[in-house]
């Protein structure tokens, strides 16, 4: 292999060592620690006992709170994913196929929310949805409601709304990228063979943009599932998600072993999802 000599030993070291270091220090070591902690336990005096046992995992099934909150988190993640796709796909499609001028400007307008701080967007929804917030004030001004509507804020609904707003750009981006990669002559070929624009969309464009849809859906679902700030800001007690429990366990409750056990379960779920979507995506990419 003569081309093996193109890169010097120093060059190879320089490009491989930093990422390896990064992965080791920030991923492998923390996950190994997490793994160990999840099999340890904690005394009532909040001291960690290095005694290997499965109690933390057993507790996850024994205490019904954990599955309940986990399923609620997945429902919220599912709802956010669906809404993000319903909002993101049409925008991406319109931008990619039907905008010729000022495409960049519109693209930036969709992306701009990403530049704003997460907290700013969270608090914005708090001000909009609160009992003396913008939405309630507007409804009362129009005499649609007489009293402030309470369930806007501090509900799963508020969490879904906020997270949809925050994560739709993440869904939009991969869909837009996949639509931009659909060769335009395929669309022409479809029209040429007698398919109307509507048929062409379903038979050519939609199947070819599926990898982007999957990637976007994965983004929205996984990011929502791990979110704990939106429930904290706008969720209230009924909008608590699984990550809030993890945060509490690592913080106020000081039960790191149980927190680690939940985290590992979450990690498994997410890795499972990533593995599945990766498999499907590969099946539907033709380049």
């Amino acid at each position, binding site marked *: 292999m003569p081309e093996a000599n193109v890169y010097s030993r120093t060059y190879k070291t320089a490009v491989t060592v930093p990422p390896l270091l990064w992965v080791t220090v920030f991923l492998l070591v923390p996950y190994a620690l997490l793994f160990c902690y999840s099999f340890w336990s904690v005394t009532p005096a909040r001291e960690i006992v290095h005694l290997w046992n499965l109690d933390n995992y057993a507790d996850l099934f024994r205490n019904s709170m954990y599955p309940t909150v986990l399923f609620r988190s997945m429902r919220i993640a599912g709802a956010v994913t669906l809404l993000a796709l319903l909002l993101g796909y049409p925008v991406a499609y319109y931008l990619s196929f039907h905008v010729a001028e000022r495409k960049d400007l519109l693209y930036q307008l969709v992306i701009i929310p990403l530049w704003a701080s997460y907290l700013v967007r969270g608090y914005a929804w708090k001000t909009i949805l609160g009992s003396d917030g913008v939405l309630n004030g507007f409804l009362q001004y129009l005499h649609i409601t007489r009293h402030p509507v309470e369930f806007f804020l501090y509900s799963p609904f508020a969490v879904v709304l906020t997270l949809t707003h925050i994560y739709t750009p993440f869904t939009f981006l991969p869909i837009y990228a996949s639509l931009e990669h659909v060769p335009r002559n395929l669309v022409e070929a479809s*029209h040429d063979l007698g398919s109307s624009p509507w048929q062409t969309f379903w038979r050519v464009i939609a199947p070819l943009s599926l990898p982007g849809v999957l990637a976007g859906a994965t983004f929205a679902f996984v990011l929502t599932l791990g979110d704990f700030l939106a429930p904290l800001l706008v969720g209230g007690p009924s909008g608590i998600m699984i990550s809030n429990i993890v945060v509490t366990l690592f913080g106020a409750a000081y039960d790191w072993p149980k927190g680690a056990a939940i985290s590992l379960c979450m990690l498994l779920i997410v890795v499972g999802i990533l593995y599945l979507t990766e498999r499907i995506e590969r099946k539907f990419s033709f380049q």
Partner: protein
Amino acid sequence: MTASNTQQMPAAASRANETLLSIRSVVKRFENREVLRGISLDVAPGEFLTILGESGSGKTTLLRLVAGFEQLDSGEIWIAGDRLDRMPAYRRPVNTVFQSYALFPHLSVFENVAYGLRAARAPKSDIPARVKQALDMVKMGEFTKSPPARLSGGQQQRVALARALVNRPRVLLLDEPLSALDANLRRQMQSELKALQREVGITFVFVTHDQEEAMALSDRIALLRAGRLEQVGEPREIYGRPQTAYAAQFIGQTNLLRTQVHDGVACAGAIVWRTFEPAGTATFSLRPECISLSHSGGPPQSGEIATARFRGRICAQTFAGASDVLEIDCGSQVVRARIPAVGPLSGEREFEFSSADAIRVRDAGS
């Protein structure tokens, strides 16, 4: 001679009347640039018409207007009495073979060919047989299940042809379909394409920049230059009787002789011959193969005024198999001659050509 003329007249007239595709005064602009500047062209049923032109001449744009991928700015396109240019692309009874094939990557070869049938809502039970027939026609019957990405360029080309032909279009449009193939495959596909067109009897409108391909395949060639039709005619007619200097140079090789005509004599430096053209400046096209070595020596006899002779120095000789190409310096200009291979030649020689072979052409430069 008059008898044969009167016999041929009605046949020629009826063929001219019988028009399938009619392009009338078509103008197309991109931004402010006029890409097509008033194209009028009639295509007869069953004809193999080639739109020939260099890149940027507007040939692909013309094809895309007929297919419906672009909208014209003025003019009309008709197909068998229907206004074509007002129909959306998916309603037009024409199909296209794309330069890059444009096969659907997510569909098998079978589904690619079946695509048009499904769009036309052909009876489900007919589809397998019709797809198979179309694929057999292009010798791709064994590849029905493969995804297009597994096929070679030539095979993809065949599938694209089958896909475009399966719906039996009134006109098949081909946009440089052979340009991505290597030379051998290209020649093979050319003859297959011609045979296929005869077999199915569908009108082909073929776009290419390759004049040899155009001459080999076409019933007629429409030579396009910068958005205007330079000349339309049968390949032999355009080659033998080019109307313009551009047509003479683009189709085949030629010598352009820029002359002054006085009293029935054309004079291009040392080359002088008799002509019936009126006095003034005139440009003539003289094909290299029309020039030959003169063996008589001495001035032309009074009886052979139709033969022109000139002397020139052979400054280069290129061996081309059955023939040699000579570059002859005759003082005022260098002309090329293609003569049967005779072995090495050099020095000053006398050459001759029949003055009927010097064709007067229109020349923007003169």
